[in-house]
């Protein structure tokens, strides 16, 4: 049955499109989805889940369940980068440990979306507040990472510019767009969603498939870097997500989240950032090697989650 789920996950258009993109690189075709088209797709997906999440939230209202989920989300967003950091310090210098820990402490919206699409196909739903939870989980890891850094390294020439860091963390474009469209979706409710649905609802799965084609290309281009990552980090990039997902599921069950919400929460815990956090780390921790944290997140963890992780966490 587990295998059935795996197959059902892989054999649907978005995941297959990801594999198609991956294959395009491995076979050295010259296929590319030039910038800014990927930006268009990712902006579209963020606006779409924001508006839809807000609309769902306007139907369900903000109740105790919602607050419970948000509290759990904040908790995991703070705790994951801390334990990830200490595990990473076993083998790495502080800079790289911070950058990778922050990467895994944050989330990947596309993983979340793909999981949502998998869940819907099985007939389950998740609450609109999960989008709020996702938004909440995006930034704290950056802050935690930099606090760890300032704790373990005394930089002489120049301290961390906390103003810039907080802005990078809480006002990075994806957090801002998600937050903003969530509010817009919430305010404009049923009527607003009806006007937006043809673009941001009906086309959603197709656009996801399109975007995953590009994700496949991007991940594929990084695959040649995996060997430089080393066996320790390779293992880390698969084991940590599974561990995080397990913790997430456990917490979700203890606090009585619904099946759908629990699954989505575990996916959030398991996913790693490949846009917002790397950008912030590149700026604030230039000593860390982006080839490590971007490759791990994009070329190992993301494909793993998309293909194997999602059915696995569902099965858990």
């Amino acid at each position, binding site marked *: 049955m587990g295998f059935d789920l795996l197959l059902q996950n892989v054999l649907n258009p978005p995941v297959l499109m990801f594999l198609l993109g991956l294959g395009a690189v491995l076979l050295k075709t010259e296929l*590319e989805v*030039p*910038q800014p088209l*990927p930006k268009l797709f*990712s902006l579209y997906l963020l606006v779409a889940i924001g508006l839809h999440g807000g609309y769902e939230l306007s139907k369900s209202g903000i109740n105790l369940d919602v607050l419970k989920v948000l509290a759990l989300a904040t908790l995991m967003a703070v705790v994951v980068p801390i334990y990830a950091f200490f595990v990473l310090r076993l083998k790495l210098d502080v800079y790289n440990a911070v950058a990778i820990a922050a990467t895994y402490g944050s989330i990947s919206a596309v993983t979340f979306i793909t999981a949502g699409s998998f869940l819907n196909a099985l007939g389950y739903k998740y609450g609109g507040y999960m989008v709020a939870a996702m938004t909440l989980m995006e930034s704290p890891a950056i802050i935690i990472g930099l606090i760890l850094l300032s704790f373990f390294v005394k930089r002489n020439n120049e301290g961390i510019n906390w103003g810039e860091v907080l802005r990078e963390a809480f006002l990075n474009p994806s957090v801002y767009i998600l937050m903003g469209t969530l509010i817009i979706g919430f305010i404009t409710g049923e009527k607003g969603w009806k006007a937006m649905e043809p673009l941001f609802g009906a086309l959603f799965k197709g656009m996801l498939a399109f975007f995953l084609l*590009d*994700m496949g*290309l*991007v991940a594929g*281009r990084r695959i040649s870097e995996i060997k430089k990552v080393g066996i320790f980090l390779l293992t880390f990039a698969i084991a940590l997500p599974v561990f995080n997902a397990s913790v997430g599921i456990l917490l979700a069950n203890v606090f009585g989240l619904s099946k759908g919400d629990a699954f989505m929460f575990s996916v959030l815990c398991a996913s790693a950032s*490949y*846009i917002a956090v*790397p*950008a912030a780390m*590149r*700026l604030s921790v*230039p000593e860390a090697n*982006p*080839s490590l944290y*971007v490759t791990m997140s*994009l070329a190992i963890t993301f494909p793993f989650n998309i293909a194997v992780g999602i059915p696995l966490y569902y099965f858990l």
Partner: protein
Amino acid sequence: MKSMKKVEVVVDSVYLSRALEILERSGVSGYTVIRDVLGKGERGLMSGDELTDVFKNSYLFTVCEESIALKIVEEIRPLLKKVGGVCLLSDVVWVPH
């Protein structure tokens, strides 16, 4: 027509705004920027085709008096040391209008 120095900089796009701040502080009369430039150097390939803007360069040049050029060089060196990139000086003749 006036002999001037051209200062060219290739730097990680993430740090473009810092490089421009340095130019402004040094008192240049203007500058020109080309975003989204690719390249290869010590820090590997900047293929510019990522979702992340992390592997992307920007190119900028400014034309200025030698004294200003030297000020820029001095200020930009520590930045480039930390984050990588290239800085070049050459001679040009500025056509005034």
